[in-house]
């Protein structure tokens, strides 16, 4: 899966947010705030990583078990799909 073109992760005044660029504003007139781990996963998605690679990243960065990491990644990906920010390739 990959992030659709026309979205940018920015840190604005200490807050990680995804903002639409250019023509994307027409379909996504708003912004999405991300937690610290959400921003980490977004950056991983920018590399077109798989869900398994994102799970491994969370296990490296946080003291959590594999099942929790997998649940977190699945929730994150579903949220991104629901908001039409990413697409399956």
């Amino acid at each position, binding site marked *: 899966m990959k992030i659709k073109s026309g979205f940018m992760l920015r840190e*604005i*005044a200490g*807050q990680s947010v995804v*903002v639409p*660029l*250019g*023509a994307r*504003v027409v379909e996504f007139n*708003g*912004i999405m705030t991300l937690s610290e781990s959400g921003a980490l996963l977004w950056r991983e998605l920018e590399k077109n990583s798989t869900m398994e690679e994102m799970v491994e990243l969370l296990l490296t960065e946080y003291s959590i078990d594999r099942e929790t990491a997998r649940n977190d990644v699945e929730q994150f990906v579903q949220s991104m799909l629901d908001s039409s920010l990413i697409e399956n390739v």
Partner: protein
Amino acid sequence: MSLNWIDFSKKLSENARANGIPLSGAFELTSRCNFKCKMCYVACPARDKRALSRELSAGEWIELGKQARDAGLFNLILTGGEVFVRQDFPEIYEALCNMGLSLTIYSNASLITPEKARWLGKLPPSRLSVTVYGASPETYKRVTGSTDGFKKTMRALEHLKSENISLEIKTTVVEGNFRDYEGIYKIAHTYSDNLGIVNYISPRREGCGSDPTGNRLSPVDIVNYERYISEYGQKMRTVNKKLELKIGQDEMEEQAGLADTEDKAGEGSAFSCQAGKTAFWITWDGRMVPCGLLNEPAAVPLQVGFSNAWQKLREGCTLVPKCKACSKCDVRSECMACPGRLMSETGCFTRPAQYLCEAARYRAELKGQDIQAIARAGYY
């Protein structure tokens, strides 16, 4: 979690203020305008070669946009003059659109053709703020010097509406148009959900043949205008609740969601607004200043870099002295005084301005009369 722009900006403002982040700014892309409003503080003729030669290039504005974005900018106003007199405005705008900024365009709209409206519809700003100078061709001729300005503006509003552009209507109140307030209100009602009233005309910041103070309303008349349009607005809201009136509200404060909040961090500052705290203004010739009214303190970001200029501006703003007489004045809650207006009116930060004082006293007097009337009616 999805938020709208305003809620999001409000959430960030406190952090920006605490950390001195330039969250909001304005790029004054040109001093030139196709209208010749006598009350304008920056209105050189559209083909003024001297002004044109001193304007920053498209590439310089785009570079400033990148540097400002990297320093934390989010809310950016693009203003003039009239931004659409720049042939390269599309180049500047499209580049800024791809930087992750929330863009607001200020325009008189008269140069927005159907083609330009379609182009904006594909790359919409967060808001397009259109200043309407009257409700008839005659008023436009009187205020802007343009015989077809009214027709062109109304056509542009139609095209922009059909492209679903988020519109704000504003009006600048002067001798030549104050009688049009009902008509302007109706125009705003047709195209927007809010009407901004610019109720203060500053003496000119720089010379372009304009005469702002010769065309603004007297202190008594401007306060009367505020009351008339407020009462008219209240009457109209009983019919349709859509339109919100914003009298004399600062755009950058509003964007930051701070219009109604107390700036506790700014208690020691002469500025009650965000100027030099989270907001800046860059003039058409590339000077970073606190706001559109002030020429000082200033820095030149293209020479020293945006972040260094911002730090210099922040430091400069902390050195601006408060007006002690204003701080002690018993009608200060009714007064529009600020460092920019005091400097514009008196040439000094610390001297009360007669125009502002008279308006504040009259506002306080009317408020007192209202309270007495309510008391007589038995509500207290």
